């Protein structure tokens, strides 16, 4: 796998981050080193899968609960129109 400029730009697209040129350059230099380090994990044999003694899921009751801070939340909107968040056009 090769980390080049177009791959970094592609990840930026997926992550919804506009990357400036100097950021792209820095990431093209840094990401391979980091991925190379974490890539050593490939050598760890995990078969057969251990049981993990995992924590059981704890679903809660599916109940409607009142939200008492509706207005405070709406007040945080960068662009509020009455009780709506106004957003730029999607298309």
């Amino acid at each position, binding site marked *: *796998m090769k980390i080049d400029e177009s791959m*970094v730009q592609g*990840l*930026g697209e*997926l*992550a*919804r*981050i*506009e*990357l*400036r040129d100097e*950021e792209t350059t*820095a*990431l093209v230099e*840094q*990401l391979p*080193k*980091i*991925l190379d*380090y*974490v*890539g*050593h*994990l*490939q050598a*760890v044999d*995990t078969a057969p*899968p*251990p*049981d*993990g*003694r*995992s*924590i059981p899921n*704890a*679903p*809660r009751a599916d109940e409607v609960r009142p939200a008492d*801070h509706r207005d*405070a*939340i709406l007040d*945080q*909107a*960068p*662009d509020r129109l009455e009780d709506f*968040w106004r*957003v*730029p*056009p*999607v*298309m």
Partner: protein
Amino acid sequence: MISAQLTIAEIHKGLKAKDFSARELASHFLSAIKTRDKDLGAFLAVRKAALVEAQAVDDRLAAGESLRPLDGVPIAIKDNLVTEGERTTAGSKILEPYRGTYTATAVQRLHDVGAVIIGKTNLDEFAMGASTESSAYQPTRNPWNTALVPGGSSGGSAVAVAGGMAIAAIGSDTGGSIRQPAAFTNLVGFKPTYGRVSRYGLIALASSLDQIGPFTRTVADAAKVYQAMAGRDDNDATTSPKPIDDLASAMKQSVKGLRVGLPKEFFGDGVDPKIVAVVHAAAKQFERLGATLVDSSIPHAPQGLATYYIILPAEASSNLARFDGIRYGLSVRVGRGLQEVYRQTRDRGFGPEVKRRIMIGTFALSAGYADAYYHHANRVRAVLREEFHQAFDQVDVLLTPTSPMLPWPFGAKSKNPLQMYLADLLTVPANLANIPAISIPAGFIDGLPVGLQLMAREWDEANLFRAAAAYQGATDWHTKNPPI
């Protein structure tokens, strides 16, 4: 007399004897912040409301009410814990305009037992870092040597206590962010078992690893602050209904017969030999107290760091997707259309380390790489968990260094992200294994504090605090104060 070295028990004694009031105590710490924090940079916000809260404690006591566990105790809160009506930045510019719309469960529980919340503390942006240098707002300096970092990501909380500006502080620990700054500032720092303390209102970094815990000067105070926060919360489905151990009685037990394991992987490559020597001396102390030292092993512990730096960015990239400039926080609306708002807001709002981790996480979760990276890392995590289970069949606690290195000068690791990540080497395994771990003062090297780490089996905070209290009871490292 009021001093920054008071324990919670001493505060309560003083309040009962009317040596001082809760309001006087709060005023003392507010003025300590005013005079000292210019040089230390621990606080992002100071709460004037602390005086009102302290007055309420005094009024209760005057009315003859009995003392609650944290009545009058000035506590600082890491600024990734949401507080209603107040700024909560997580150290990021993207949250600069944000005001909390509710209060985190852990903070609410402190309020409920009388704590006085004195301010909100600096951190690495979104808790990503080991030095507090990635905060978008300010550096935080180590009171033991202000040319050095205080550790991170909860550096502000550590320095609030170590710098004499709070009695206790709250941090969050995803891979060592409480324990490592505690070690760097000569404090006790405790990460509970995953599921002990509610994460409701903690701005998520990596949801399967994050836990909230205390910074204090003493093990006994750490237990008190932890117990006030711990326990089931319906707003966090991962909190356990298990009863919280009676740590006060656990701490009265001697460590005679306690099996203390020394896992060899935590004393090897990448660990400063001087730190190893300090921790070996601490092991001898445990032996003198009647504990049995046992050679132990967590074979895949050295792979913990790589495991962590796949799982953490993956979870973080997903958690941070919510910061998009639409519903709250910074919103940059210069381009055409929704996608531009996302892209520009996240470019301006996030700093370099946050972007780097989002990119790594996006890669580790992307089609074609997810199995080799993210899913494989989770399988290695399960292997590591199993190795801890097996180790704890032979021992009651594990003893290791907290940090492989001493505090470093500002900027020394900022150019090379991997160097910074290596600081987490010895602390991430406990998060990956969900187990409780504590760092306590264990000595000094060239005038800089060194912490030892104890880990115990899942839910076994009792043995962890039993061991930690016994060691602290036999040593005086924690009574040493920084020059500032």
